């Protein structure tokens, strides 16, 4: 989708009143896809920045139904993949199949359920995650089951900005690459243009979450500038 370079940039945004406008700004500044956070009260995979953003979103009444309305709003504004990201408890309550159908109707491209292992709910099409701790057997199963691309978690840890790109990414990317041809997008701990550039040498795309959420708090202009700097680093 990117006009040049070919490396993909996925920007994570938490649902909130200003998110459609933010998503539009991010796409106009060069994001190739938007990962759209539907908040959960107990997000085990998330570090402080996204956890707090989720708390705010819940306080603002961002219930799953409203999140899907917002997703439709974003879909009306942009023409890139939109990927809701949430937790199993939300889908358990909403209904697994019903959620998949409603999200798709709202314009979702796929889905990420960060605490749902690949072998649970096998019929639910979603982007699978792999981590530095994944065995080759699990890498292969995730690659076979995944929907479009594989989310390569760079670190053993939760989401959140880090000073350096994790040294665990390179060996993991190499292991996955040997097992599959699906596109690999790296995420968790990628927060600067330098991280993005370094990661893009190893994989096909990057996901920027906590730092994007933090920057989005300063408004669409700040987010656009940040996304633009990531785009420039990737191209």
């Amino acid at each position, binding site marked *: 989708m990117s006009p040049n370079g070919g490396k993909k940039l996925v920007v994570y945004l938490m649902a909130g009143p200003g998110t459609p406008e933010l998503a539009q700004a991010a796409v106009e500044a060069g994001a190739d896809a938007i990962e759209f956070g539907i908040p*959960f009260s107990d997000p085990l*995979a998330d570090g402080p920045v996204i956890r707090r953003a989720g708390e705010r979103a819940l306080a603002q009444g961002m*219930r799953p139904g409203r999140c899907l309305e917002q997703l439709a709003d974003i879909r009306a504004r942009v023409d890139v993949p939109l990927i809701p990201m949430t*937790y199993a408890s939300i889908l*358990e309550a909403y209904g697994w199949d019903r959620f998949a159908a409603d999200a798709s109707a709202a314009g979702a491209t796929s889905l990420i359920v960060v605490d749902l292992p690949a072998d*649970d709910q096998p019929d639910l099409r979603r982007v699978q995650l792999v981590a530095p701790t994944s065995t080759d057997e699990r890498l292969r199963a995730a690659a076979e089951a995944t929907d479009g691309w594989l989310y390569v978690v760079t670190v*053993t840890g939760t989401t959140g900005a880090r000073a350096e790109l994790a040294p665990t990414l390179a060996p993991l990317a190499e292991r996955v690459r040997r097992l599959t041809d699906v596109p690999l997008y790296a995420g968790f701990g990628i927060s600067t243009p330098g991280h993005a550039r370094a990661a893009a040498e190893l994989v096909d795309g990057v996901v920027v979450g906590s730092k994007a959420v933090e920057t989005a708090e300063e408004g669409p202009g700040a987010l656009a500038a940040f996304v633009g700097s990531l785009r420039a680093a990737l191209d």
Partner: protein
Amino acid sequence: MTATRTFGTYGGRYVPETLIPALDELERGWREAQADPAFRAELDDLLATYAGRPTPLTRAGRFAPAKRLYLKREDLLHTGAHKLNNALGQVVLARRLGKQRILAETGAGQHGVATATVCARFGLQCVVYMGSEDMRRQKPNVERMRLLGAEVVPVEFGTRTLKEATSEAIRDWIANVEDSYYLIGSCVGPSPYPEIVRELQRVIGREAREQILAAEGRLPDAVVACVGGGSNAIGAFYDFIPDEDVRLVGVEAAGAASLGTGRPGVLHGARSSVLADDDGQIVDAHSISAGLDYPGVGPEHAWLRDSGRAHYVTATDADALAAFHRLCATEGIVPALESSHALARALDLDAELIVVCLSGRGDKDLAEVPAR
């Protein structure tokens, strides 16, 4: 694989991928340990010579004059609660897996103390996550953990209680999974933890069954235990499950009745009955007893509830306090506020011969209990 949902539709492994290989490793290690007589022998020796097992079964004749009510005295175990059964077993397992750093969450502080104790005993690093609200109301246990060499990490967000402490312990585990062992304190969490904790707590019911047969020549009409996450209850119940005439009664705090008023949901890695809203967001529990102040419960209890084999009732803060004072005054035993919930419902239970699991002692609760 739904095969990992050990308890009907409950259980499972709802955790980030990073942890799944560690759970596989834990499961392999646990199966090997169970098949190894040396594991059982080491644990039995520790339980006998370090923890103080078997614990007695005490008739509480003045507490319940109209019944034959017996207390299974887990309050007399080293560290003052049943939690040590589990902490000892899991630390022996952690050593077999070669882990040097032990992580735990704690609510009332009893599991934290038990974990700090076994880590001191084996020279392991110990990090305990505890909600700042619980640190306030269970101060003596915070001091005990620190004396024992544990690092107690306050959790300052959300409910500031056991729910958030558990989430933070799991986040630490995600970040340090290669060298750390997560020593979960109750029969909750991703598979195989609920099974491991049950097997390590089964000793309560196994002993109680033998002891009541020796004392009364028959099985009890009912076994009663308090339920937060549910580890003392599953341990007390388990060996009585095949005895179909023995009623199994779990007592939840009225403000934290995950089984009584909860719905199917996912919390801390398992599908179980949880306190959640229509959207699946976990809602706050409330109890005067920090150990019961948790919006989830072990998946096996949800399964026992659905199958009808166990029944779950509630006790209010006031019910528990009344039973607390009554046991102090009539038997000279200061029970934990958690266990006081079980005592309250046992008193008015329509049954003659009753075993109550007195899961812990109440010294830690004195600051929370209004004097009478």
